[in-house]
């Protein structure tokens, strides 16, 4: 009965932004991966995950995001995050994710930072 994660896509010229709303658990992570892999398959190399609408995640959901990071390294693309809650940001730090995916405070900072 839990609200499933809602994923919205904003495809721009130079990058694609994926917005999430809800709990990133197993299914939530899979849903993000599905959308992101589709983007990558269609040639997209810069993906920003805006987690503004996500207040909780679990480690299974995050593990699926690591698959995305791996893929991005392979194609020499860029994956970044923005608008994390302090706990989600801390969790990413604990895991060391921030070495592989940049974390921005907000969307404008991310869009600027992902250029070039």
């Amino acid at each position: 009965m839990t609200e499933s994660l809602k994923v919205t896509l904003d495809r721009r010229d130079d990058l694609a932004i994926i917005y999430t709303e809800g709990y990133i658990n197993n299914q939530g992570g899979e849903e993000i991966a599905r959308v992101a892999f589709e983007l990558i398959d269609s040639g997209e190399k810069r993906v920003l995950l805006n987690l503004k609408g996500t207040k909780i995640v679990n480690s299974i959901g995050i593990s699926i995001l690591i698959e995305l990071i791996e893929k991005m390294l392979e194609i020499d693309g860029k994956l970044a995050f923005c608008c994390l809650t302090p706990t989600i940001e801390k969790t990413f730090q604990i895991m060391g994710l921030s070495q592989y995916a940049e974390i921005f405070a907000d969307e404008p900072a991310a869009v600027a930072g992902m250029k070039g």
Partner: protein
Amino acid sequence: MAESPIMREVTLTLPMVADMEVAASKTATAMAAAMAMSSDKIDEVRMAVLEACINSFEHSGAEDRVVHITLSVLGNTEPEKLRIAIRDTGVGFRPEEVEEPRIEEKIKARRKRGWGLKIIKGLMDEVEIRSDESGTTIVMSKYRDKRGE
């Protein structure tokens, strides 16, 4: 230093059904809020409870399909710390044999999971795991006020 006395205690027994970890984490949030923890700390407790419950759900194989959670507020005149014990009667495991996950390896590994315990330890102030063939108990605590931070 002796441990402070228990000021308030709530015990839950929850069925291992989908998303029950979210309900458990809400009770932890309510207890933490009632003792006036900062919202960032409350949120960290919440995430740790989520992870510990998921571990019992996924790995314990407990036949009774329930997890026992005891939330205790400890303190003398004022609440000092929130201690949460999450217990299952499953198969148990050897914590000392669990490999510490490293991101450099996980990026390339086929199995990308294995982060739960590391996250719990990173978010809580104290974590203790007792596990044998009769089950697993993880006891984790968070101090209300900063401690060596």
